[in-house]
């Protein structure tokens, strides 16, 4: 109880809350910030989580994942909230473990949707791969704040991060904040971030073949999102996450 009383709301000065919707944070309240879900994956085991997050209310999901030697955790998330919606995953990897993250933020209105990850490579030979795709319109925002820490003796770490945003209107925005802290020397850390618009030439080509504007846009967005769920083998879950993303697209500006 004493600890809860000292909890305060974060501010924009906190790196991990830099692009958060502070009004949404306030509406979430202090209590919501204290809700962490712990996932411990024993050595050699594997866990996959597929989530569809988002509603008309602010939402926050926080996960703390601990991976044993050679363990694997995969998170696939469609973040399609119509209000401030934030998904956070903190991961600690033991030797040879793997963390896979595939996330989609999608939506219009004026809501902010974000993924915040902290991946701690504390032991050698662990790998992580994070792919986030953002599709926004109106004045919607998509953020990916990805922190990667590689300890001094965590040699042969391979940590990749890739963010791409597709903005359907000029008022929409996307922010990528990669934060790499690497103390080992024999590591691979690839990261990239791009922001673009819908390919108008492709859209006209599709319409010239008979697709109406909404269908052409849906196919192009579907293709764009594909990378986020490419590592998800379960066909039903794959379809469920993709459908949730594409149904959020209905009502988007053409």
């Amino acid at each position: 109880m004493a600890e809860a009383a000292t909890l305060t709301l974060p501010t924009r000065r906190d790196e991990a809350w830099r692009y958060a919707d502070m009004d949404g944070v306030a509406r979430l309240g202090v209590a919501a910030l204290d809700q962490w879900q712990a996932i411990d994956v024993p050595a050699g085991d594997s866990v996959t989580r597929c989530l569809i997050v988002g509603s008309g209310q602010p939402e926050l999901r926080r996960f703390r994942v601990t991976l044993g030697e050679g363990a694997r955790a995969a998170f696939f998330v469609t973040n399609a909230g119509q209000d401030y919606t934030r998904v956070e995953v903190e991961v600690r990897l033991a030797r040879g473990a793997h963390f896979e993250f595939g996330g989609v933020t999608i939506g219009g209105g004026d809501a902010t949707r974000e993924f915040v990850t902290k991946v701690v490579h504390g032991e050698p030979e662990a790998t992580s791969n994070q792919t986030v795709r953002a599709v926004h319109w109106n004045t919607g925002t998509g953020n990916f704040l990805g922190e990667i820490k590689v300890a001094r003796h965590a040699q042969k770490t391979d940590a990749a991060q890739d963010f791409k945003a597709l903005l359907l209107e000029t008022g929409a925005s996307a922010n990528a904040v990669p934060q790499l802290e690497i103390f080992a020397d024999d590591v691979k850390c690839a990261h990239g971030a791009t922001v673009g618009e819908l390919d108008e030439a492709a859209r006209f080509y599709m319409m010239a073949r008979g697709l109406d504007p909404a269908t052409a846009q849906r196919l192009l967005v579907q293709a764009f999102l594909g990378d986020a769920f490419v590592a998800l083998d379960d066909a039903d879950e794959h379809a469920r996450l993709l459908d949730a993303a594409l149904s959020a697209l209905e009502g988007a500006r053409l």
Partner: protein
Amino acid sequence: MLEITNLHATVGGPDNPTPILKGLTLHVPAGEIHAIMGPNGAGKSTLANVLGGKPGYDVTEGSVTFNGQDLLALEPHERAAAGLFLGFQYPVEIPGVSNVQFLREALNAQRKARGEAPLSGGEFLKLAKDKAALLQMDMDMLKRQVNVGFSGGEKKRAEMVQMGILDPAFAVLDETDSGLDIDALRIVGAGINAIMRAPDKAVLLITHYQRLLDVVKPDKVSVLAGGRIVETGGPELALRLEAEGYDAVMADG
């Protein structure tokens, strides 16, 4: 079938309009293959894009009717459903979308707009196989992403496979022969004949080369220069252009 009358069109948008088509008139009846030739920059691709309804091309005067319907009032996808096919000079790559998915959705969208039942996956694949075989294209190519990693010639051949699958009433083919070697040219020419030579169909065939016309054998040939049709004749006009060049033929009047 297609009646283009006194067509004027600009590019560059309302703030900075550049007139490209300047009073173009051309009638193409059903059953006719009509070749359009003309120097670079004459406005041939502009004509194709205006007919297809590409954004950025503004019609400022004139009319285009297609089977009695005002073509210019239709959206690009409505033009396709009405039976118009635009073969692109530069076919567009669409990463992440397979030819099969793209063409099946396109065909079924057209069928839906015409009040026809959609083709099942199996029916569509059979049709796609037939048309790929007609153009001697490996079916594996159709499973790949639209035009991604295709050579220039493969893209043009893929355009003709698309045309075969969609089976339009009227095709505007913009330099479909460019980028093709001699063998591919023969295959594509034969494909155009097989798909489009019919009493109820017609083709506007934009080309620079007699080689394609040797195979497709147009009924009429027109010269487009300076945004207008300046001369129309039979197949012999193309031969004269090939022998003497645009300048000489146009100087003769």
